């Protein structure tokens, strides 16, 4: 049972990133390809999706797996692939404060989080918004130079096609403002542009004062702006946008059915656009648990229109598989998967050189046995801790050459993880109160952008407020 992965060079940067992430118990941002085990079909399906997005198409996938099945890892791998294929990616975890649909600023909050995590291949760790904007303006400047016209003219010309879309006009204004800011050395204006693009303005008044535009990115225009942005990145020379949204269980856990259904409705809108191809160069990957999908009372299946679109292909089954449906099912790891994963980790740790392997194969099974004795099946079903301890083990061996591995394995302490999804449902109500909005906002959010700033909320208005926000 010896394993001899093809000698592949692993960059020290990737190696360190992978090891550090795993030791911290988080999914690596880069280098996932080195530790991917199996799932060739699933990865292949997503690669095809990404190519379609790059080809100005659209795609949507729901990666469904149980706790520990590797949803987040899968999403990150997909994101890395997308970056390699010259897509821009945005990603965020859904949470009670970050939803697809809301009236209390939670959708805008999600947009802001996505845009903060905007990544390109050269900036894979987020914060790539200025790069993207500047790429666009640079291109425009080149054209302007060649045609000897004012850059702003070219910028407006190139953005003309966006104006047909919701919010397109103000978007063009804001991009033009960036050039103006650069041209005049107005760093404040530049920062305001980036803040606007990230959806960090919470009131129109502020936006108007800062940028002279009438609209902001808010809960109601969350998705329209995503579509707009997808068009924009193509103008800037990128292939498209891939949106990765993890922890969909947070939508499922919304106890208020009206709020939940509004989110599902938004999801349906996205799903329809993607399946019909009307979202150009835009793709979505969601991560969620089986109950989130299958529960016919609160899950996606509770929403009839989603149900019919997400239900499995009736011709698949009986050994036939269909990876073209929107739902990708991720199986939990098996002991064999775990074994292969450990060989991969060993390989990464040795920077790809089999001569530097710190452990023989039998040590891997010995390690698995040890874990199995400690926590039972959990060691491969919820592998985070197992992986973490294994990497720690390798680290100790590396720093203490000559230590016998068998003695170290016996000392590995491992405990069972608990599934955070099993914690009680969050109560929906307090999150909708203005005071409970996360601190990440630069300014206190107002409940809605469509009405004038509301009068101070008196207790008697609670009902109306609640209704509005849900």
């Amino acid at each position: 049972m010896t394993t001899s992965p093809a000698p592949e060079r692993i960059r020290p940067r990737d190696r360190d990133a992978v090891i550090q992430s795993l030791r911290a118990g988080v999914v690596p941002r880069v280098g996932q390809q080195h530790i991917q085990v199996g799932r060739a079909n699933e990865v292949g399906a997503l690669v095809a999706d990404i190519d379609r997005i790059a080809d100005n198409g659209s795609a949507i996938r729901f990666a469904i797996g149980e706790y520990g099945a590797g949803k987040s890892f899968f999403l990150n791998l997909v994101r890395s692939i997308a970056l390699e294929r010259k897509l821009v990616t945005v990603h965020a975890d859904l949470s009670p404060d970050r939803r697809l649909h809301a009236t209390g600023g939670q959708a805008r909050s999600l947009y802001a989080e996505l845009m903060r995590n905007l990544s390109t291949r050269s900036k894979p760790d987020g914060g790539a918004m200025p790069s993207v904007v500047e790429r666009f303006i640079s291109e425009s400047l080149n054209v302007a130079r060649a045609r000897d016209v004012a850059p702003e003219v070219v910028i407006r010309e190139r953005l003309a096609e966006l104006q047909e879309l919701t919010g397109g006009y103000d978007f063009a204004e804001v991009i033009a403002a960036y050039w103006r800011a650069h041209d005049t050395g107005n760093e404040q204006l530049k920062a305001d542009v980036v803040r606007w693009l990230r959806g960090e303005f919470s009131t129109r008044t502020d936006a108007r004062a800062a940028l002279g535009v009438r609209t902001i990115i808010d809960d109601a225009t969350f998705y329209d702006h995503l579509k707009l942005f997808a068009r924009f990145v193509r103008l800037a020379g990128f292939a498209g946008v891939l949106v990765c949204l993890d922890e969909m269980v947070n939508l499922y856990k919304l106890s208020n059915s009206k709020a939940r259904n509004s989110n599902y409705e938004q999801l349906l809108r996205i799903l329809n656009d993607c399946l019909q191809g009307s979202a150009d160069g835009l793709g979505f990957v969601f991560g969620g648990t089986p109950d989130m999908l299958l529960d016919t009372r609160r899950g996606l299946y509770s929403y009839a229109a989603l149900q019919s679109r997400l239900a499995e292909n009736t011709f698949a089954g009986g050994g036939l598989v269909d990876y073209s449906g929107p739902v990708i099912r991720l199986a939990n790891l098996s002991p064999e998967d775990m074994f292969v994963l450990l060989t991969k980790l060993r390989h990464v740790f040795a920077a790809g050189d089999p001569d530097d392997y710190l452990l023989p194969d039998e040590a891997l099974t010995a390690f698995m046995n040890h874990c199995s004795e400690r926590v039972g099946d959990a060691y491969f079903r919820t592998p985070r801790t197992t992986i973490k301890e294994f990497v720690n083990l390798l680290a100790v061996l590396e720093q203490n050459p000559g230590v016998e591995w068998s003695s170290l394995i016996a000392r590995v302490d491992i405990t069972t993880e608990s599934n955070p999804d099993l914690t009680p449902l969050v109560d929906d109500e307090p999150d909708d109160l203005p005071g409970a909005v996360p601190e990440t906002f630069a300014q206190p959010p107002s409940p809605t952008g469509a009405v004038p700033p509301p009068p101070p909320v008196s207790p008697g208005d609670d009902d109306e407020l609640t209704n509005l926000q849900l």
Partner: protein
Amino acid sequence: MGFRDLFNRERDESPTVGTAVGPFSKSGSPAPVTVERSAEGSWIPAGGTIVVDGRSIPGGMVYFGTDLHGIREAEYAFSSWYQPSPEPALIDPSLRVEWASPDYAGTSMGYWPSYSEISPHSRAAYLAWLADGRRSPGTYIGYVFLFLYGLERRLLVDLESDLDGDEATALFGEVERLLGLYGDNGSFRGYASNLLSFATLAKSISGELTPPVWTEDHRGWEMPIDVQLGVSRYVAAGQPIPTDWALAYLRFHPSAYLNTPAKRCQSEFDELFRIRYRARFGDGLKVRAPSTKLQFSYRPSSASFGRTVNVQVGGLPDVMSIEGPINKLRDLATEISDELDAYSRLLGRRPDEAGTPAAIALLPDELVATHGGELVDQLRLWVDERLAGQQQAVVPLDELVDLWSSGKADKLAKRDAVALASLLGKFDIGIEPDVRFGASTPKPGSDVVLFRITGDSAVSPSSSYTAAMSLVHLTAVVAAADGSITGAEIEHLADHANQVLGLDESERTRLEAHLSFLATGKLGMAGMKRRVENLPATERAAVGRFLIDVAAADGVVSPDEISTLTKLFGHLGLDETDLYRQIHSLGTGDPGPVTVDPGEQTTRWAVPPATADEHLSERVVLDPAKVQARLAETAQVAALLTNIFADDNISPTLPPPTGLATRLPPPGSPAAQPPPDSASIAGLDAAHSAFAVQLSSQTTWDRGEAEGLAESLGLTFLDAAMDTINEAAFEICGEPLLEGDDPVELNAYAIEEMIS
């Protein structure tokens, strides 16, 4: 030879039952003559006329004369001092008769009257009655008795050897006639009946006997003579007692103590008795002859005899002297009564329901053919027609109800449903749903399933059947969740029921019919909770697992099925999260190399044993084949990813690297507007190429310096320029050239790769 001698005579030959050989000889019977005048103590035969005191009295059948003693007196005649009294029935013409004032009311008559002792007034009344043809109603009974005394003496003394002769027959006829006229008098009826039984006895002993049929107006504690005789003949011969004799023996036996059903439902009881008697005793009950002999006692009414006459009959054994036979028959009778009890009670409560299907359904199976009547025939015919040789058939309930209630009711009450099921069961037809098996009463307009019962037809469910039915119902609900149950699904379920649930043949048949029924209509969840609660807790998880397998049998767990499963899991008290997990794991499957025989994959749904924590204490055992498969797949995905993340593959879309470095402008030289054809690297335009080359002169740059350099090359935005360069770098070597924002660092490896 006296009367008693005759009966006491031992037979010298075994009796032949049913033949005409009897103890009575027919020889020596005197021919009846008409006597016209008084003679000494002679019998005047019927039709003779006597003359008393100048008046002639027709009719005969009396003793007439002056010198005839009573029987007992004759026996004691040896005593010389004894003055014998005359025969009470003797009409002595020498005695005075007061014709003028007859005592019709019999006011002067004593208890044991004698012609010689009654008053002349009474004599006148007696003779008048005789002359009148012995028929005057309301006659004082003493006169009738007086006449009967004569008949007794003639029959039991004179004709004792010829009791089945013509004269005796005629005399018995006369007794019967009188019984008809004066039977109202209890005393007379008793004596006359007893006398008549001698006639029967006479015939019985010699002739053929038929068992008498018991009727409710039979009174008295005495077993009729003919029954005793009939039974004892068989006992004496060592032969089994035939059915009808046994029945009569039981019926008339004073200590049979028959219950109400035996009386209220006599016909049913008797029929069932016959069937059961044959079943239990074959040819009949065999009784060992007791030593006690059969003996009849007769107490004559006439004082002439003076005492009871005991008669032993030809050495026949006395079947009343033993308890054995009646005990056995009584046990049988009790059983039969019990079986008829429900039927009898129904008739007791609702006498008008006799013959209705509800009543028939309560009859024991054996009686349905004989007592079922037309309805059963119709029902049977109809069922046969519907089944048409098939194992089962779906029929509309309404038709059945119509037939059942003769159009009187349009739905089935629960009581009726039970009755219908048991009636059908009597000719081995089952019905589903069957209330007796825990189903609810079928609704009007629905369909039911008739089926042929194979094997023993139980009438209540076994615990495993209840469990199986619950399971089948649940699975049917699941299978039907996505529309309807298909034939294939039914087959699967039936198959499973047969193999896994441990049912016997009849239960399997019933379960299949139940399935067919489930397939006919919309399946409710009504009553499901109650049923599921009957399942042991340990089995519920297994049931849940099984239900999911059923839902997934067609390859897909549809949302409707999930919805149903969710409900059922709730009923089963199982965790919903488990449900989703299991469905999910079905969906992921295992793409490993384990080749499964497709034939085995399809229909075996054994309820899986609990697998919880199986691995906990076991050592990890890796399946080498699976590991190899996983490695192969991993290699596949690695190849895919390597293509994407390639650091040494040059994308074919890129222009091939040209010898650029040689034509680079010297570092630091201003090149605000580089000529379009100036040297470029890695497909970058001139400005970016120059920027990259100039940057590569240092390993780190302060951001401000880098911006200045970019400006000088006409690159407005540092970020954009860096992005463009990095993109090119990725294409060439898979790594960025420039890293970090402030300071900007250069990747030595990338420099080497790009500018070489």
